[in-house]
């Protein structure tokens, strides 16, 4: 029999520490599959963030960095400038990328830094126990927006993909979701493109992946992916926002 869905080479054997049903795991697998398919495992250097995926350096079977909170794009810049012929990616959460690391992601994009960023937007700070993220939905209750996010004091969910698309240095920007197999397939396609854009030296590439945090959303996993589809997707339209030829 032929293997149609297996275990990617670019993942170590180590079981993920993520909560049951946490879609960080799906996204890890997709990234690993793409690295496998592009045959770049031995050319790739990854940068893990601070966030639930802080231990990503234990899961990807490639050279890895553990960056300080929000600074993965700066770390990746340092790496890429030293090894312009290698493939460098960052894997970052929404607190990491869209809050503390805002300046770093914007300037990496604006410089057209030839790196790939996987941006996992789960509308919450998972690692620290469910605080509000800049991507938290309007009215969503979190441990630091106990009465629901109030736009009057905390603003609106931030649109990272739309914002980065404005910059001349970004070459590929897409938003995808992993709430069902169809979207997972699209997500993988986008991730693959985001690596190819780097391989072709076109510029900065980012894929924003809408992701579920069953634990801090206070839902069972099956319920969480449904909530993702019903609430996050309408707030964060999916699609390719930018693709430079």
């Amino acid at each position, binding site marked *: 029999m032929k293997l149609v869905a297996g275990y990617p080479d670019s993942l170590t054997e180590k079981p993920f*520490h*993520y*909560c*049951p049903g946490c879609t960080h795991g799906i996204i890890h697998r997709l990234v690993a599959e793409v690295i496998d398919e592009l045959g770049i495992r031995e050319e790739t250097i990854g940068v893990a963030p601070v966030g*639930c995926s802080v231990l990503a350096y234990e899961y990807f079977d490639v050279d890895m960095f553990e960056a300080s909170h929000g600074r993965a794009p700066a770390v990746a810049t340092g790496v890429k400038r030293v090894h312009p012929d290698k493939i460098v990616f960052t894997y970052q959460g929404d607190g990491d990328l869209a809050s503390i690391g805002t300046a770093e992601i914007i300037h990496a994009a604006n410089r057209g830094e030839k790196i790939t960023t996987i941006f996992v937007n789960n509308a919450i700070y998972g*690692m620290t*126990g*469910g605080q509000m993220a800049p991507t938290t939905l309007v009215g969503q209750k979190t441990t630091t927006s106990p009465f629901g996010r109030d736009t009057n004091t905390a603003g609106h969910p931030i649109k990272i993909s739309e914002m980065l698309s404005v910059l001349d240095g970004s070459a590929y920007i897409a938003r995808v979701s992993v709430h069902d197999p169809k979207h997972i397939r699209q997500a993988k396609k986008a991730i693959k493109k985001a690596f190819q854009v780097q391989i072709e030296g076109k510029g900065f590439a980012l894929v924003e992946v809408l992701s579920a945090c069953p634990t*801090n959303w206070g839902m069972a996993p099956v319920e969480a992916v449904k909530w993702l589809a019903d609430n996050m997707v309408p707030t964060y339209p999916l699609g390719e926002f930018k693709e430079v030829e």
Partner: protein
Amino acid sequence: MKEEIIMAGFGGQGVMSMGKLLAYAGMKEGDEVSWMPSYGPEMRGGTANCTVIISSEKIPSPLSSRPDTVMVMNLPSLEKFAPMVKEGGTILINSSLIAKEVERDDIEVIKVPANEIANELGNSRVANMVMLGAYLARKNIVKLDTVKKSLKDVLPERRHDLIPINEEALDRGAALVK
């Protein structure tokens, strides 16, 4: 009087709140108390534990390296904490989930079929209260009655309907060792 207690179990087994309840009741009776949880990153699946100290004097360290009493709700906790119990101390074991025997003969071992009793009462989540009831009956550090009265202060208002079943569980636990 000074009693150091460690409670341990899986994340969802309510060991934290059982510790809080005990500490709260101790405070109500005028004792010095402290409650100290283990804490980790928000990655799930591990075991949780807390240390409660109840004393008639000011409490020095809120941690305990040689607890007087240990209550364990699951197997990993047994393995971690049984060796720490003070000589002559007590260990209470959730025998519903722990088949293994304690390999020490210098401490008192009390088996509490906490989950079975909780299930009998119709809510597996009160296994912690069964365990606590057994402890209270055995040790007399804090009055069972004070603990019961503390329930309404410790439980959030929306859970006050659960007070009766919690009281029942405490009683059932207490009954076990009487």
